[in-house]
């Protein structure tokens, strides 16, 4: 199997509550995969296990053929995974350029010129050129989301995990964001947790639907769109698959 990332029987229970239950999941290199599901379906818990913020109760995770189940988060990031937080988590009291430079520096080391070049290029790309000197905490919410994304890009990851990146963004910002992700997908595999179905349908090559911590369905946007089971999970009609 040539999957970039795969999980087998990945499970997480919190005090007996099954948040994620025996999920088998394969992500192919180069695709944009959307992970959708109702609130509380276990999406964030699932990706938190992928990046190492949450330890699984059981099951395994492989990245590029290597078992990373027990690796700490920083080691997974070093292997080429990047994660952007659902709740914006920037360095609020540092300026925007330093936020991005911190992400670039781990890869580029002490080469100041290279870090500065990479930082400027990434800020340009996400549309924050000219904001480099502002404190990240002083930016608008939408711009902080872009800083978050810029930090992801500056790491030049092979897998970029975006946890609800468009949450709270205005329509115009979402359109720009969609173009950006299309662009990023040329270099990295993207795993996207998203509620905005417009974004999901426009971007995703494949969609995985989680419900009650289990994979309910997986397929192309068209297949998922037509699936009765998915409709039921979202609309709560209780119809059989």
């Amino acid at each position, binding site marked *: 199997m040539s999957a970039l990332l795969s999980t087998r029987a990945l499970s997480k229970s919190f005090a007996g509550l099954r948040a994620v239950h025996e999920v088998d999941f394969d992500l192919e290199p180069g695709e944009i995969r959307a992970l959708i599901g109702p609130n509380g379906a276990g999406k964030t818990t699932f990706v938190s296990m992928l990046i190492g913020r949450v330890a699984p109760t059981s099951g395994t995770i492989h990245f590029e053929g290597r078992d990373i189940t027990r690796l*700490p988060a920083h080691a997974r*990031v*070093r292997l080429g995974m990047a994660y952007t*937080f659902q709740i914006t988590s920037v*360095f609020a009291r*540092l300026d925007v350029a330093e936020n991005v430079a911190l992400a670039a520096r*781990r890869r580029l080391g002490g080469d100041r010129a290279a870090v500065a070049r990479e930082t400027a290029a990434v800020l340009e790309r996400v549309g924050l050129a000219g904001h480099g000197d502002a404190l990240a905490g002083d930016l608008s919410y939408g711009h902080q989301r872009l800083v978050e994304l810029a*930090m992801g890009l500056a790491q030049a990851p092979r897998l970029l995990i975006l946890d609800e990146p468009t949450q709270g963004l205005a329509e115009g910002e979402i359109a720009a964001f969609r173009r950006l992700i299309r662009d990023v997908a040329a270099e990295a595999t993207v795993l996207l947790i998203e509620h905005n179905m417009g974004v999901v349908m426009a971007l995703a090559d494949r969609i995985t639907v989680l419900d009650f911590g289990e994979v309910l369905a997986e397929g192309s946007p068209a297949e998922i769109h037509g699936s009765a089971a998915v409709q039921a999970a979202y609309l709560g009609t209780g119809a059989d698959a």
Partner: protein
Amino acid sequence: MNARILALHGGLLALLLALHFVLPVYHHGNLARVMVLACYAIGYNLLFGYTGLLSLGHAMFFAAGMYGMGMPLYHLGLGAELAFLAGIAAAGGLALVVGLLALRTVGVAFMIVTLMFSQAFYLAILLAARWTRGDEGLVLAGADRVLFGLDLTDPDIRYLLALGLFALCLSAALWLVRRPFGRVLVAIRENPERAELLGYDIFRHKLAAVVLSGMFSGAAGAAYGLMFGYVGASFAEVHFSIFPLLWVLLGGAGTVIGPFFGVLFMFYLIDISSGLTPAYMLVAGVALVLLTLFAPQGLVGEVRRRWLRWLP
């Protein structure tokens, strides 16, 4: 390096050198003491101001440097140069062990654990009276206090060596905090979870910060013992852990020159107020409260916030 940063820090050192020639004897001696203690504060600031870890036990590192220097010099007749290095090594070694254990905790627990280790260290000094001479401490003979042929009982030499050590510590701190390593420490202070998910090993960075901080503190302790000829258990007491916290808070946590001004300010605050009234600690206390109210980021921190955002 940025020219204005170089000018500011170099300027401070040049000013201190110029003061050597003009200060009256009393203030000349004070300033030598302040510069050595500023090295201690710089070490403390590296951990507290830059990494965001509040230790209440740094006296153990200062004292480890002092005893690590004093005991081999006193008992084994080791030369002052090697004894000084032994002091730094002792403090670094202790910091490594304490760091490995204490860094399993964060926040208040980290404060308590460092405080407890420091108290244990203080009691160990008293208990090992056979070698440390307990409460009395070790008085170093003038003949032993000779560093590279320079006689440390001479106030002029003392001042210049204190300035040399301070210049070394200041430059090292400036270099460290501007390197990628220092930037990661700040990132850990600001948002450890985010820093971890940028691929930085938080524990190893914190441990390195504890060890470096301990070595700065130990160098200051060793130098203090050599310069003033006394190695005593009072330097391991809890108030000697609180001092660097106050100095750094007053001077400006997370600034390179702040610790120096914190020590200087507090030294003269107590010096002047004790000349005015026996209740000098009250004067000092009120001044501290006022400063905390009106310049919560400390003297240099406030200057940075208002005027000089480029201050490292």
